[in-house]
């Protein structure tokens, strides 16, 4: 028998669990419209694989993970994609986010499934890919993609696998019902997880307020003779917090800022284990989950197996809600849940409970009064923080100090606000401070990025200017060189061999000039002889000279053209 350790603080709020455990799990109706937010998990939103008008089958992948930490989304029922865009989503802000909307056809026609009968015989990488493809994210509440927790790599050695069955928050009984009715699904899922992680010890932590679930699990473990130890812990909120349960079962305190894997522990929820079983053995992706519908405004308070994407209003109608009695609608439990205004929002992978509360059940919070420094919040804080100090820092906007007082170790369980005699909404103050700090960090990161880009731009402008200068210089140099070259060429031309064509032209014109001159001289001689003028002797001489010259020029030209033609 494992020793049970203790964690600091904790409270005992009224459980209010019995109301929803009277009837077995019921199938919720298939709604006419399924609304599937692309972000149902921690990490990046999924990327749609379908377009408006596409016909999809039940279980078909309609969005794939974006990056490492993300999860796939599958069509929970067959139908036609009618819209992809903004829709109200389950979020504290009440804002809209990107969703895929399916008009169901009521056929419930499955796509081709790929079950793995013998998961032990296939490669672990293959098995992990199968789990990733099934879109499984932690069903306990945070919605962390499961395949990442199961694929820790070489730097983490897992010695203890803890299955979280504590379900400590009041009202919620989804895990309890699952354990009562489907203990074998859970145990097969645990076996698959254990096959992947190879831990030396497997513990299931469960609170002692679930005797039927304990019995069902214990019988199943005994029957199958599994090396799993069922550890029953005393009921105390929030024993189901990951770090608190680890402390209860192992005595190890996960250090601030670390994850359980850093101390060799992996924690998985029972619902997640059952989802892994369905994905591996039956090839069914995560398309439905158990949701507790409770609160005194409902006619049927029980657990429903609802398709992911079912609008709250459909579930409320199925549970025969009396809207005149409903004072407020809460998503999640009374401690960590949030009030919602719009009941058109859909069930997502992390929706474990919907409370339709009457005025008597959850009256308006009384007005906050000044802190009297009683210190009760410190006594109940399961994370061993100083809630009162954090409150002052958050209220005074001294976020840096709040951070130094480990604000980010706060799990927002609400125990401090529960015991506060002044009714101060402490958790809201912490949430405010946390989101302010996160926002500031994001802004600083953006500023750093902007600075980097600005500096890169300045550097580029300087470089471009220099390059321009360089190019200008190069161009000037090249132009000067070109000019020098031309000048040198012009100087060199006469001394070089003459242009044969020009020479030819010259010879030709010289020959024709000589011919003309000879003609003129002959005419003059003829004229003189006819008129009997003096100096005919001289003219004769000139003509003879010119004749000689003309013949020389003619022959020179003839020779030149002849050589030209003979040797081109």
């Amino acid at each position, binding site marked *: 028998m494992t020793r049970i350790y203790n964690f600091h603080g904790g409270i005992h*709020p009224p459980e209010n669990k019995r109301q929803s455990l009277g009837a077995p799990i019921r199938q919720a109706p298939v709604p006419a419209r399924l609304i599937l937010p692309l972000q149902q998990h921690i990490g990046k939103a999924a990327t749609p694989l379908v377009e408006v008008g596409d016909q999809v089958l039940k279980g078909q992948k309609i969005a794939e993970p974006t990056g490492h930490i993300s999860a796939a989304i599958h069509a929970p029922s067959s139908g036609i994609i009618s819209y992809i865009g903004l829709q109200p*989503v389950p*979020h504290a802000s009440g*804002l809209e986010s990107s969703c895929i909307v399916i008009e169901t056809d009521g056929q419930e026609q499955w796509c081709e499934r790929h079950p793995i009968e013998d998961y032990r015989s296939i490669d672990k990488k293959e098995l992990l890919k199968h789990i990733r493809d099934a879109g499984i994210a932690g069903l306990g509440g945070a919605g962390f993609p499961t395949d990442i927790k199961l694929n820790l790599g070489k730097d983490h050695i897992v010695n203890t696998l803890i299955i979280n069955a504590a379900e400590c928050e009041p009202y919620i009984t989804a895990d309890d019902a699952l354990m009562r009715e489907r203990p074998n699904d859970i145990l097969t899922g645990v076996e698959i997880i254990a096959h992947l992680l190879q831990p030396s010890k497997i513990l299931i932590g469960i609170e002692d307020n679930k005797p039927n679930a304990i019995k069902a699990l214990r019988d199943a473990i005994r029957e199958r003779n599994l090396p799993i130890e069922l550890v029953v812990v005393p009921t105390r909120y929030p024993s189901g917090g990951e770090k608190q349960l680890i402390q209860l079962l192992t005595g190890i305190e996960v250090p601030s800022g670390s994850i359980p894997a850093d101390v060799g522990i992996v924690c998985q929820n029972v619902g997640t284990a059952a989802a892994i079983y369905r994905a591996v053995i039956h090839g069914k992706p995560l398309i439905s989950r158990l949701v507790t519908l409770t609160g005194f405004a409902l006619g049927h308070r029980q657990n429903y197996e609802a398709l992911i994407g079912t609008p709250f209003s459909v579930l409320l109608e199925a549970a025969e809600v009396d809207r005149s009695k409903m004072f407020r609608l809460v998503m999640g439990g*009374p401690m960590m849940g949030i009030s919602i205004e719009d009941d058109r929002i859909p069930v997502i992978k992390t929706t474990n409970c919907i409370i339709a509360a009457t005025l008597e059940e*959850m009256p308006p919070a009384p007005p906050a009064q000044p802190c009297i420094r009683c210190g009760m919040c410190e006594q109940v804080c399961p994370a061993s923080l100083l809630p009162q100090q954090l409150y002052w820092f958050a209220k005074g906007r001294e976020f840096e100090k709040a951070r130094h007082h480990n604000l980010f170790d706060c799990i927002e369980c609400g125990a401090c606000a529960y015991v506060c005699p002044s009714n101060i909404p402490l958790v*809201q103050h912490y949430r405010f401070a946390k989101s302010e700090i996160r926002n500031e960090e994001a802004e600083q990161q953006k500023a750093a990025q902007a*600075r980097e*880009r*600005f500096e890169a731009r300045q550097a580029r402008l300087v470089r471009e200017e220099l390059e321009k200068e360089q190019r200008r210089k190069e161009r000037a140099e090249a132009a000067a060189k070109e000019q020098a070259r031309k000048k040198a060429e012009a100087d060199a031309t006469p001394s070089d061999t003459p242009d044969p064509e020009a020479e030819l032209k010259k010879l030709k014109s010289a020959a024709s000039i000589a011919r003309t001159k000879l003609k003129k001289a002959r005419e003059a001689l003829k004229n003189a002889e006819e008129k009997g003028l003096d100096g005919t002797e001289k003219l004769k001489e000139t003509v003879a000279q010119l004749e000689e010259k003309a013949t020389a020029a003619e022959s020179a030209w003839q020779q030149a053209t002849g050589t030209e033609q003979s040797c081109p």
Partner: protein
Amino acid sequence: MTIILTAILILLSLAIVFGVILGFAAVRFKVEGDPIVEQIDGLLPQTQCGQCGYPGCRPYAEAISNGDAINKCPPGGQSTIEALADLLDREVVPLDAEHGEEKPKTVAYIREDECIGCTKCIQACPVDAILGAAKQMHTVIVSECTGCDLCVEPCPVDCIDMIPVPVTPNNWKWPAPVSDPNLIWTDRGRGHLLQEGTE
């Protein structure tokens, strides 16, 4: 007499020893640059908008370290002034209205069918967040835009709008708590009553 001389000698030798140590330290541990400028620059929002009258955040940081006023940065707003006052141990003063007023975060948006592709906004953008080429349509890289407004002025066809950054579930902030009857704080007390009444 000897006592006085001894005292003077001792003090003199001490002065020489410490002088040597200090001189060595000044050389050995010399700080390159002005670290306070880095710290001031780290607090400024890096929009590079020039509303302070300096050509960018770093020049303004240098000016502040040389004694300029700390209330000239409208994008940073009051929180930046407070952070600067805290760092420099100066008085917190309200934002100087002469340099503009604190506005909600915006991002530039180019109406693309009106863009004529003149590249004037590309040259104006201090963080290279506008994409485009001559006679080609331009567009803003939203994730890199600092919302500095500098591209609006040079646009010859006025096709750039500064639109406020939309609130999505990813950048939504929890509001500071007020006395709101919708807060779920606990079901203490009421639950006890209920259990007694029903079970």
